[in-house]
């Protein structure tokens, strides 16, 4: 497989602040690659450097084999970009914006179709300033796709969208990938990274702390499944003797058993053996949230 994006030892500082410390990764053709981390982790600086919008202090960058610093014009025609914190003129209409951005490249996508796919065709004559946050966001994503790009950079694309619109957006992103477009997704939403990305780089304080498929990250860094039930049975020490069980936490009648492998079946069998038949026995699978917490020691929202 070809590397569509190559980043080696990227570093960027703003005065005393180190935005990106030392970041390296590759993105394969046709992949949805996620940069996941809290605000200020260096994700945006990384993708903006890849688009030639920022000049890195050091590091080797290639997008579609082009150097973003020196071959900027050629590169920008072949990539799509949805920037965080960018806007359009207040009084520009939806169709005017799409028509304008489509003019940049000769063989641009059909913007009428994009407008329909992204659910803004009923707003085609509306001024940008009159759009809701979600509608603006969808227009900006549609603009990123209007030049039929080979690589798309989406920076917090679902911020401001309601849960239903986010699901729709995820579906559309998958559809874009089906056409062979490579997608670099920047997000601080764990569920978005987990549902959408083929591989995720967890970024914290300017560094990549882990990089793998979402399920791989979970298996490696947060494999513990939690079995939860309620019981007032006083002594549960026999549960701890099961090899699959790592930890038991009691919170009043609520009991959480952390463990790995077939822990649910083992716990259930042991409970039945001791005559305990809880009606609310359930499991919680680990998520990227747990991975993030384990890797960085803090939650993504901190």
């Amino acid at each position, binding site marked *: 497989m070809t590397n569509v994006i190559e980043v080696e030892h990227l570093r960027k500082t703003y005065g005393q602040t180190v935005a990106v410390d030392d970041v390296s990764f590759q993105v394969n053709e046709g992949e949805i690659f996620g940069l996941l981390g809290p605000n200020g982790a260096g994700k945006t600086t990384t993708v903006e450097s890849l688009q030639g919008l920022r000049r890195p202090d050091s590091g080797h960058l290639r997008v579609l084999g082009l150097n973003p610093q020196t071959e900027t014009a050629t590169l920008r025609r072949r990539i799509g970009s949805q920037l965080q914190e960018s806007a359009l003129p207040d*009084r520009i209409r939806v169709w005017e914006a799409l028509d304008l951005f489509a003019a940049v490249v000769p063989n641009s996508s059909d913007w009428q179709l994009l407008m329909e796919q992204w659910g803004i065709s009923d707003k085609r004559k509306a001024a940008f300033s009159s759009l809701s946050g979600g509608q603006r966001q969808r227009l900006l994503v549609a603009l990123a796709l209007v030049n039929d790009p080979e690589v798309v950079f989406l920076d917090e694309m679902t911020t401001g969208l309601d849960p239903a619109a986010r699901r729709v957006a995820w579906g559309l992103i998958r559809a874009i990938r089906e056409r062979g477009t490579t997608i670099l997704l920047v997000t601080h939403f764990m569920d978005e990274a987990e549902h959408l990305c083929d591989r995720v780089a967890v970024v914290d304080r300017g560094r990549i702390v882990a990089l793998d498929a979402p399920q791989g990250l979970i298996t490696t860094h947060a494999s513990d499944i939690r079995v939860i039930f309620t019981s007032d049975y006083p002594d549960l020490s026999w549960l701890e003797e099961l090899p699959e069980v790592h930890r038991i936490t009691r919170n009043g009648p609520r009991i959480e058993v952390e463990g790995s492998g077939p822990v649910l079946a083992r716990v259930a069998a042991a409970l039945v053996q001791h005559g305990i038949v809880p009606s609310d026995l359930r499991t919680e699978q680990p998520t990227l949230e747990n991975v993030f917490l384990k890797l960085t020691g803090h939650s993504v929202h901190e």
Partner: protein
Amino acid sequence: MRVLFKLTWVEIKLFIREPITMVFTFALPLIFLFVMGGVFGNTPDPEGLIFRGVGPIDYYVPAYIGLISASIGVVALPVHLTGYRERRVLRRFRASSISIWAVFGSQVVVSLAISILGALLLIAAALVAYDASLPESPGLVVAAFVLSVLSFATVGVFLGAILPTTRAAQGLGLILFFVMMILSGAGPPREVMTEAMHWIADATPLRYVILTLQDPWLGFGWNVHASLVVGGFLVAATLLSARFFRWE
């Protein structure tokens, strides 16, 4: 070229949708025309001491055409461009490889289009209301007009390139506009103003734009000195814009 064309067309529509710039560009010169016409009429001073010896309206029509280009150059354009930078519209343009030349070029073409509209409107009003004279040397007036509008448009792009915020652009733009309007030939006749006012007027581009337009309009021929100053502003503003322009 396709981008420049599309962007220019969008920018013309955006200009027309902005009420404040519309008032400044189209309504204000017309209001001045009717106020000055109401006060002075269009009969030349019998002794030829003020208004360069011509009818006041004949004097003011080319001056207000200059004023239209000045209001675009020092108010509308800088406010528009700084707003684009502040709201990161420029950044969005840049990421989609819309070049600074398309951005600058569209603003210059828009200035020209809007100035033509404003000038035609003003001339029509002056003809209907005051039976004003048409230009004595139409060809030279058109040349003077294009030079003047381009010059103020590049001054506008320059101010938009260097001013940090929309607020700064509005503040400075309005001060420049009103000082130039009152002192540089679009306000009271120059002949009645003091020496100090003349000095200030002579330091503003509008003074030279008005002379460049007025001389061929009134049949005094091409004003070489004034037109060189106007051309100088054009060249200097273009070079300085290219040097100091920032996307964000």
